Structure formats: structure tokens, C-alpha cells
């Protein structure tokens, strides 16, 4: 259910590293319940923006709200309400699937009954129940990514940030991964996803295309294709980037 109620508001977001401007005056809103895509080439500034919204990095200037909380003063409140999956796999590889879930469930303050129910449901959905005592480091990449996503939404956050979640994963697993995303949206979680796969852009409700730290286009895939007279998002992207 896409609403017009913004869960993320970004006004004049600027991030500079020395003289380099990674995010040059970004303005956008993300609505509750939508899949919002951040599309752009490597180095366009997608990761920088996502890290700022998750509270991992401080912006140089701008006014931003995530889940209704101010990004400068209420970072810890924001953190209780978001999930994050980084580009680099960052669960504990020396811990088992079960131990990772228990740890993250524990530090998000889930009570034991809730955690156990969610864990069972999640492992069953991922068909990993029989592998729960396997170390994560021993799993294939596709499994790891799906698991990382499921752990990122274990505590039922309002918003989940996914930074190139399907990088290096085969097309079938990517499709399965997107099914997981749709299921999360059905539960009411807003999804903020960055990618440079244009087919994935089609799956988003709205996409913003970034180039050189700026947002150069922002609309639904359908409208963008009409506007640029293109048959798919790949063509849109090439026309804009050119």
C-alpha cells in the first residue's frame, strides 16, 4: 500500500569529502510502503546517501528526517526503526545462522518468544531450517544475501535500506531476492534500494537516477520511459547518462 505519507524527507542534502562533492544538494521524499530505487553508475553517490540516512555518516549540510526523526539529533531513535544491508556482507561468518539471528534479535531488544517465532518463520521461508547450525562463512553467496536481508528486517523496522543487495548474485537468486522484498513490502516495510541493474529498476515503485552526486531524474519507471521515449529502463538510463 503506497501512501503519500513521507517516511524519509531529504532537503538540500550535501556531503563533501574535502573538495569532492559526493552528494550535491539532493531533494526527495520516500513514501510509506513504497519501493524506492536509487539508480546510478558506480561512484554516483548512492552509497554515500544511504550511509547518511542510516546514521553511519554525517552530512555536510541539509535537513533530513527518517521515520519521523531528525538525522542529527535522533540517530539512535532512527536506528531502532530501520534495517540496513550493506554492500559488503557483514554478518559474522564465524557464527552459525542461528547464532547470528539470536545476536541481532537480542541487541534489537526482541523478546525471546517473538524472536523464536520470527526465526522459525524466517528459516522456513528461506528453506534453511536444517542448516541453522551451519557457520555463515560456509554458505554460498546467494544464501548469505537472502539471510542478510531477512536479518535486516527481523526486528520489523519501518524502513529497510539495501545497498546493492544483489551484487554478484545469479539471476534466479536475484528473482528470489526480489520476492523477499515484495513480501517485506506487504508487511508494511518501506524499501530503499540502490542498484545498478536496470531490470531491478523496473521493480521499483519510483526511481531516482543519480549521476555525479546529483539526482537527474525522479519518477515512476512507467513515466520515465514515456518521458524519454524508451522501451525499458536501460534505455532511459543511457539517454540520461549520455
Amino acid at each position: 500500500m503506497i501512501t503519500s505519507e513521507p517516511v524519509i524527507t531529504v532537503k538540500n542534502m550535501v556531503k563533501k569529502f574535502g573538495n569532492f562533492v559526493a552528494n550535491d544538494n539532493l531533494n526527495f521524499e520516500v513514501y510509506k510502503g513504497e519501493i524506492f530505487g536509487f539508480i546510478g553508475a558506480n561512484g554516483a553517490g548512492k552509497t554515500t546517501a544511504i550511509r547518511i540516512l542510516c546514521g553511519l555518516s554525517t552530512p555536510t549540510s541539509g535537513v533530513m528526517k527518517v521515520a519521523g526523526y531528525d538525522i542529527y539529533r535522533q540517530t539512535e531513535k532512527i536506528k531502532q526503526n530501520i534495517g540496513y544491508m550493506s554492500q559488503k556482507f557483514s554478518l559474522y561468518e564465524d557464527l552459525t545462522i542461528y547464532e547470528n539471528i539470536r545476536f541481532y534479535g537480542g541487541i534489537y531488544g526482541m523478546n525471546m518468544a517473538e524472536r523464536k517465532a520470527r526465526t522459525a518463520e524466517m528459516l522456513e521461508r528461506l528453506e534453511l531450517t536444517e542448516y541453522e547450525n551451519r557457520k555463515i562463512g560456509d554458505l554460498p553467496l546467494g544464501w548469505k544475501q537472502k539471510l542478510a536481508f531477512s536479518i535486516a528486517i527481523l526486528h520489523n523496522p519501518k524502513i529497510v535500506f539495501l545497498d546493492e543487495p544483489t551484487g554478484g548474485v545469479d539471476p534466479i537468486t536475484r528473482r528470489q531476492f526480489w520476492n523477499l522484498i515484495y513480501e517485506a513490502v506487504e508487511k508494511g516495510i518501506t524499501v530503499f534500494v540502490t542498484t545498478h541493474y536496470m531490470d531491478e529498476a523496473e521493480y521499483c515503485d519510483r526511481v531516482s537516477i543519480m549521476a555525479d552526486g546529483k539526482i537527474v531524474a525522479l519518477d515512476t519507471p512507467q513515466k520515465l520511459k514515456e518521458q524519454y521515449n524508451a522501451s525499458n529502463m536501460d534505455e532511459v538510463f543511457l539517454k540520461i547518462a549520455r
Partner: protein
Amino acid sequence: MRTLFYILQKEFIQIFRNKSMLPIIFVMPLVQMLVLVFAATNELRQVDLAIVDFDHSVSSREMVAGIKGNPFFKVRQNPENTTDAENLLIGNKIDLALVIPRYFDKDLKTNKHADVQVLVDAVNGNAAQLSLGYLSTVIGSYSASVLNSGVKPVFRPMKTVDIKPTYWFNPELNYKYYMAPGILVVLITVVGMLLGGMNLVREKELGTIEQINVTPLKKWQFIAGKLLPFLVIGLFDLGFGLLVARLAFNIPIRGSLLLLFSLASIYLVLVLSWGLFISTISDTQQQATFVAFFSLIVFIMMSGLFTPVESMPDWAQKLDFINPLYYFVKIMRSVLLKGSNFADIFNEFAALSVFAASLFGLAIFRYRKTS
């Protein structure tokens, strides 16, 4: 509190799942106690010397026999002249050369006074003084025996005031009693600084800290989670090392063990916080190890572990005011050897507590969830 439980659970699983951790926990105390305590001795085992005897008399042979009979001295060679003796000294073949001049026997009998020359390799000043001291004692006792047998020579003035020392706390002047408590301090310092402190920067390298930093986990909880497991391991190693020292050297444990372990806990919080602070300002394990190692060496060398603090220059003694090892080496030695109680070491306790609290605070402050 429940959150802290989950962090500790995770840390302990990871520590004991690491295959190199158990050997480190058990082998390190064994090696340090059984090897380093022996290696860090100031006692002389054997002095190699050469004797140039120009006199070839009964008296000179008697004196040489006295030296040869002493277990400390090993007469390597008997060169014909002083030049050869000097070359042996320069070539590191001997530590000492004794030159007995011609007419030694005659001087002794007619003048009741004779001179000998001693050349000492004084590269290691401490050892040089000790070996010269031993040799003087051996020659002195020969002198005394000649004195009693009627020849009455004089090598040195007769003692008029007789000193009868009583050595307290370590009557046999057993060097191991002195070193073992100090080496134990090094042991738990290394555990704290290198094992414990480096643990955090490892999460930075692996990238797992990123996932932690997006959770609502509090900074102090994360730091405490990194600190407590190694506090336990450090205390365990202290106990294990103490047991080894007790069994191997029978070192005295005169003070309260409860007091000792309580102070060790404060000390470990201090060392671990220092290690964690280094971790928070480093990006890689390599950087962190370097900084930790550098500070470790400075602290150890200045702690009074190997050389008495009293013989350091004034400014260095003042610097020890901020050296945690200086305080804890002192505490360990006083509690174990002298049986000091809490009141005796209150000043050291106060200093360690202040440093531990400030460094723990500093580590938490410096750990940034947002870069």
C-alpha cells in the same frame, strides 16, 4: 543488561571458536614463567677469564688455584703476555683478565703488599661490576688465608666495622622471587592490550562493525562487551601463571589473593581500555598492533621491572607517575613478597582506579558509530 548478555555471549563464542585462542591462553603463561623468569636474571652464572701469570711462584699458583676452585670462574686460557690477554678480551673470548706481575711472591713476603691487575670487559657495566666483585672476594679470601698462615700480607685495609646484613622479604636474595611477579604483570598486560584491544579493530577490518553501528546498541555496551571477556581471560592467566610460578619456583604468596585479583581486575580494565582506545583510532590491525606494541615497550622498560626506578633520572621517575605498569609491578611485588595489605598499597590503587576509569571513558567516547 539483557543486551549486554547477548553481546558477551557472541564474544565468548567467537573467542573460543578461534583455534589459536586456547593455545595462546595456556602456552603464553607457561613460556613467560618458565623461560622469561630465568632469562631476566641479573645473577652471574659463569665468568670466563684468562690469567697471565708472570711470577710462576708458589703464591701466584695458590691464588690461581683458589680462583679455579670457585664455581663462578672458568679459566679459559693462560696467555704468555698481556697483549694476548687484551686480544682475548677484545675478541669476546673472556669477560675478565687477571695479570699477576713478576715478583708477586717476593712483594708479598717482603713488603707484605702486592698488586695484581684486572682487566674487565665493561660493555655490560652491571655484569662487569658483579664479576669484579666476585673476583675481589676470591682474592680477598686468599689474602685472608695468607694472613693467617703468618706471612701477613695486606691486599686491602682490614675491616674495622663489621656489617652483618639481614635481608628482609627475600633472605636468600632469590632473583626469581623478584622477577616472577613482574613477568606476570607483563603477561596480563600483553593479554589485555594485544588480544583484547585488537579484537575491535578486527571487526572494522571485516566490516562487521558497520552492521553493529546501524543498530540501537549503546556505545558503552559494545565497549563493555569487548572488554569483559578478556578481563576474565586475563584473570585466568594471572591465576595460571601464579600457579606455575608457585610450582616451579615456590615463589612466596604472603598477601591476600583476593586483594591481588581485585587490583588485577582494575589494572586489566585499564589496559583493555587503552587497547580498545587504540583500536578506535586505528583502521587496521597492523596499525593498532604497532601503536600498542610501542606503548607496551615504553611502559615495560620504564616500569621498574628490569631496572630499578630509583636509578632512573629524575624526569623519568616523574614520567612513571602515568605509567600503569609501574604501579602494578609495585603492587604485585609488595602483595606477593611483603604481604602488603590494602592500606599499604592504597596510593597505587587510587592511581590505577583513576586511570582505569578515565581510559574506559575515553575508549567509549572515541568509539564512533557515525563517521
